[in-house]
């Protein structure tokens, strides 16, 4: 099974993106938006960024704190790593079929400082190493041929 990825040029480089729908218990009341998501092997976790928090209308008060690595530092900001537990990610495979991937949790990066959320003009979510590992996927990324996909043998 293959999940085709879209190569998009960002800042002069081709990078692998996909779009995901996050599924979670109804008490999280997530807005049913698809998020443009960077496949990021530099991120240990699959995470929703501040832009994604606003897009999905996530109430960070309803989320639990991560047990380990509770804070993430990036640039000038520190983020609390919160969790959407027993979540899932829905993607579309090469045959245009919806595929559901369960996840024990998805991280939500909530900035510790109160700042205008419009400051974050970023990718709303990243698919991290936890997702690739948990589902036994492999990532194929060949920017010179403009091919990228996730594959499960």
């Amino acid at each position, binding site marked *: 099974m293959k999940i085709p990825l*879209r190569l*998009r040029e*960002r*800042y002069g480089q081709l990078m692998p993106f996909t*779009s995901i*729908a996050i599924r979670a218990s109804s008490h999280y009341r997530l*807005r*049913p*938006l*698809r998020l*443009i998501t960077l496949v990021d092997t530099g991120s240990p976790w699959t995470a929703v*960024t501040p*832009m994604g928090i*606003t*897009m999905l*209308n996530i109430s960070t008060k309803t989320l639990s704190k991560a047990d380990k690595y509770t804070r993430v530092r*990036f*640039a000038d900001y520190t983020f609390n790593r919160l969790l959407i537990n027993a979540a899932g990610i*829905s993607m*579309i495979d090469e045959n*245009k*079929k*919806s595929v559901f991937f369960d996840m024990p949790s998805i991280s939500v*990066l909530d900035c510790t400082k109160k700042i205008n*959320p*419009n400051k*974050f*003009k*970023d*990718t*709303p979510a990243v698919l991290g190493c936890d997702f690739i590992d948990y589902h036994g996927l492999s990532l194929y990324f060949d920017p010179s041929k403009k091919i990228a996909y996730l594959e499960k043998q």
Partner: protein
Amino acid sequence: MLIIEKVKKMHEEIEAFERFEKNEDWFDTHLEDLEEKNRNKFLAVVAPEEVIVDDDLKRLLAKLERDNIDFRSVFITAIPPIGVASIL
């Protein structure tokens, strides 16, 4: 009955995804022009040629909500200011 509902939901999801993909394709083919005109803004492609732009993401989402637009098929992105790489 439950199975019929599930199949219907799956079809709806695929249809919404196909509309989303069309919107994303349209965004990609008009990227240069859209970036030039909408620096430092949030942008929602509701349909090809139909774009809603705002400085404020919450206000943009409220506009979509008010107009009863199906969220599942809307492509939303941000255009960073010139010379700035927003990587988170």
